[in-house]
């Protein structure tokens, strides 16, 4: 097999995250390319959650519906995944829990873990079974387990090693019974995959922000965005970042604005519902020309919607957030690398133009993890634009670009006077009509014109000489990319946008070259297609939309593209 898709399914709180964690690490160390993503319910215990781990030779990084190996760890698992189980799915499970279903290969976890002493060891047993089936060296697995549980002390390590042996033993029996799985390893690649880093979207965004100089983050817990705040909190001392859980989202955005005003680099992290409370703050940033970086981890709305699931539904929200007209930038990473580089970039953009910069991700992307060679902290160097002030400093001095030198309190002789009321160049309030007009043009038209000169270009994947053109943004990137490989249609291109606003001036050029343009978005209204229409007048008639709270799968994208191409 070229790649296999392993799915673990169990109840919330049962520990499949741990199995995922062990497996992805050890398999990567064993030179497999790894992709993993999870889906989970909005509850702490019970229900049915699942994780898909793809193990493969070629670096593909997307969710598939297909399940090759299913580890059904709770009695609801088979029902939960019924639409994804095919005749080819090999199902493993504890028959004591699942019942005596013929198709199921028994892994008697209850019995084994009772022997070891506690059901918590079923994680290591399961991981052992999988590694055994995949031909991971038992020696290396044992080493890994020893290190993994190092902090828990000798007795726990030993119990887990016992569990590991049980797992490998079981795998051996299963293989002997004739069930074998073979995935080619990636040794033929020019690089050694075991030296790769394995990183999630969440961590890549946080690290990108740190690389961009972030030293302040505030947020109110909200799935799926909390991970960024928790990463920053964990490494607060190491990277000298203030990471503060605020009393509400309004406080969070205003804190971040305050941090920038004082010369820090602040960001906030939230999801749509939390962001809806921040719009007045965004407007303040626009008016006071204070930079701010806003990470929105999208999830399905309206209101509380499906709080742990995925959607690309907050583009409109970011695009039109806050009352009044002012410039902004919206970025939408679709790969782990872009999560890092665009998050880094966001800080330079915000600082340079003194505007709100948005990073739109979603639950799917944040919870994805896969291996990549590394991330380069030097790429797109950090730029700081803070000016030392003189005595006659004017915070909102008119310039040709619309951007005034930005001073900070206590750095120079000048005073930094900002306001969210209409103001003159010094920063004091005014009701003058002429000044008002000039200030609007400064904040809106002039800045936008500048920004349009350095828009981050979309990436054209697939057929460069396309006849059919897919338009997508953010987290669909890798899914569509894999789908393109399956479709092998040389006339099919995929334009993946990493910057959604402002659009590059050349976007129309891409569109008119295609005979058929297809938008693909994980929302109900085609928000990006609407934006393109608003900006260019170009009407994308074909839309592949999804809004059931689940990510697209490679198979679904492939089918839906085919349907449209065959129309």
């Amino acid at each position: 097999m070229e790649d296999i898709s392993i799915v673990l399914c169990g109840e919330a709180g049962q520990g499949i995250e741990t199995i995922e964690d062990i497996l992805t690490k050890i398999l990567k160390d064993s030179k497999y390319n790894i992709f993993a993503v999870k889906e989970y319910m909005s509850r702490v215990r019970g229900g049915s959650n699942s994780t898909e781990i793809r193990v493969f030779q070629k670096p593909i990084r997307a969710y598939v519906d297909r399940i090759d190996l299913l580890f059904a760890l709770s009695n609801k698992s088979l029902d939960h995944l019924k639409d994804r189980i095919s005749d080819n799915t090999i199902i493993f499970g504890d028959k004591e829990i699942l019942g005596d279903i013929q198709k199921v290969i028994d892994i008697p976890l209850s019995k084994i873990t009772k022997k070891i002493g506690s059901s918590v060891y079923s994680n290591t047993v399961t991981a052992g079974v999988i590694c055994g089936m995949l031909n991971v060296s038992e020696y290396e697995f044992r080493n890994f387990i020893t290190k993994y549980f190092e902090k828990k002390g000798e007795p726990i390590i030993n119990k887990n090693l016992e569990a590991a042996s049980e797992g490998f033993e079981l795998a051996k029996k299963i293989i002997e019974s004739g069930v074998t799985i073979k995935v080619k390893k990636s040794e033929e690649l020019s690089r050694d995959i075991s030296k790769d880093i394995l990183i999630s979207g969440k961590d890549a965004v946080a690290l990108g922000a740190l690389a961009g100089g972030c030293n302040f983050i505030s947020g109110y817990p909200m799935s799926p965005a909390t991970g960024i705040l928790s990463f920053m909190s964990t490494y607060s001392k190491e990277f000298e970042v203030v990471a503060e859980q605020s009393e509400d989202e309004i406080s969070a955005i205003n804190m971040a604005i305050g941090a920038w005003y004082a010369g820090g680099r602040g960001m906030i992290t939230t999801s749509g519902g939390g962001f809806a409370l921040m719009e007045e703050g965004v407007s303040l940033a626009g008016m006071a020309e204070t930079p701010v970086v806003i990470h929105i981890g999208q999830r399905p709305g309206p209101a509380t919607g499906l709080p742990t699931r995925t959607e690309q539904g907050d583009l409109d929200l970011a695009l039109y957030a806050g009352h009044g007209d002012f410039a902004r930038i919206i970025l939408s990473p679709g790969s782990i690398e872009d999560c890092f580089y665009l998050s880094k970039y966001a800080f330079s953009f915000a600082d340079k133009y003194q505007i709100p910069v948005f990073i739109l991700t979603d639950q799917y992307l944040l919870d994805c993890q896969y291996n990549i060679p590394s991330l380069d902290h030097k790429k797109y160097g950090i730029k700081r634009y803070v000016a030392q002030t003189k005595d006659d400093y004017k915070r909102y001095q008119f310039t040709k670009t619309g951007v005034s030198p930005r001073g900070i309190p206590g750095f120079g002789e000048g005073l930094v006077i900002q306001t969210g009321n209409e103001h003159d160049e010094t920063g004091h309030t005014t009701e003058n009509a002429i000044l008002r007009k000039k200030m609007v043009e400064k904040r809106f038209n002039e800045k936008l014109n500048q920004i349009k000169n350095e828009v981050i270009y979309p990436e054209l994947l697939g057929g460069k000489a396309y006849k059919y053109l897919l338009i997508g943004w953010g987290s669909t990137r890798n899914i569509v990319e894999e789908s393109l490989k399956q479709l092998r249609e040389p006339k099919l291109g995929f334009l993946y946008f990493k910057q959604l606003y402002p659009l590059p001036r050349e976007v129309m050029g891409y569109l008119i070259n295609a005979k058929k343009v297809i938008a693909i978005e994980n929302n109900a209204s085609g928000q990006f297609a609407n934006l393109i229409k608003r900006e260019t007048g170009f009407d994308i008639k074909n839309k592949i939309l999804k809004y059931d709270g689940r990510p697209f799968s490679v198979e679904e994208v492939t089918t839906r593209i085919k349907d449209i191409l065959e129309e």
Partner: protein
Amino acid sequence: MEAKDFDLQNIDISWCPGCGNFTLLRILKETFAELQIKPQDLAVISGIGQSSKTPHYFKANTFHTLHGRAIPIATAVKSINPNLTVIAEGGDGDMYGEGGNHILHAIRRNPNITNIIHNNMVYGLTKGQASPTTMLGVKTTLQVEGVILEPFNPIAVAIALNASFVARAFVGDIEQTKEILKKAISHKGYAIIDIFQQCPSFNKINTFEWFKQNTYYLDDKHDPLNRIEAFKRSIETKKLPLGIFYINEKNSFEENIGLYKDNKDPLCFRERASDKIQKFIDSKMR
């Protein structure tokens, strides 16, 4: 330094004649001068309201922000640059109405900022609606038959939350108000000072005279370390006490976050060694 070092030239002050804001402006200038705080080292963050315009009328780094939101902004400013003296300033509507949640949590968070509330017991800028501190029964354009919501008691709430520094003043007494303010600014941690002031345009009941008649100073016998005593005083209604009700020395937010323990440089002046991130990525993520 002198108060006039804070004077701004050619300004058009938009307050009404006889407004208590004028006195408070003077008090602030004198206080900063007497404390020898340079305008450059001062960051005054205000909300929206008549009182929140104050920072436009004297020399300082200032940020006139949104209605109700001065506190979170001021909190972050202080955490990024603790060398600044940071003031969060606003009206009773701004701070106790729209911004009510921030006060509760600022008390808990305890940043080393001074929170000045111009309490005129009315919404001035929007022309006379009841504020959270307007007295029961007072009639306005929105409370046509008189206020029915029990007035908000910021002093009692602050004491209930074990705040670090809790005081009340009245602009009618310049010297004492300055003394209280100086102590508040010098105090380490969050200091809340509710300052009574007349609004001759919209508050015809709580006039300058009214405040004079209906307030008195806590005397030397009052022990600001005694929380129960402080609470007792805070709920008095016959006459409203002025002075420092309660002091509770404790670590400030900036101390607690631990980023200024070994290194006193403000975060805004520190550079991050960017190879640290590279090392982190290449070690931790492997």
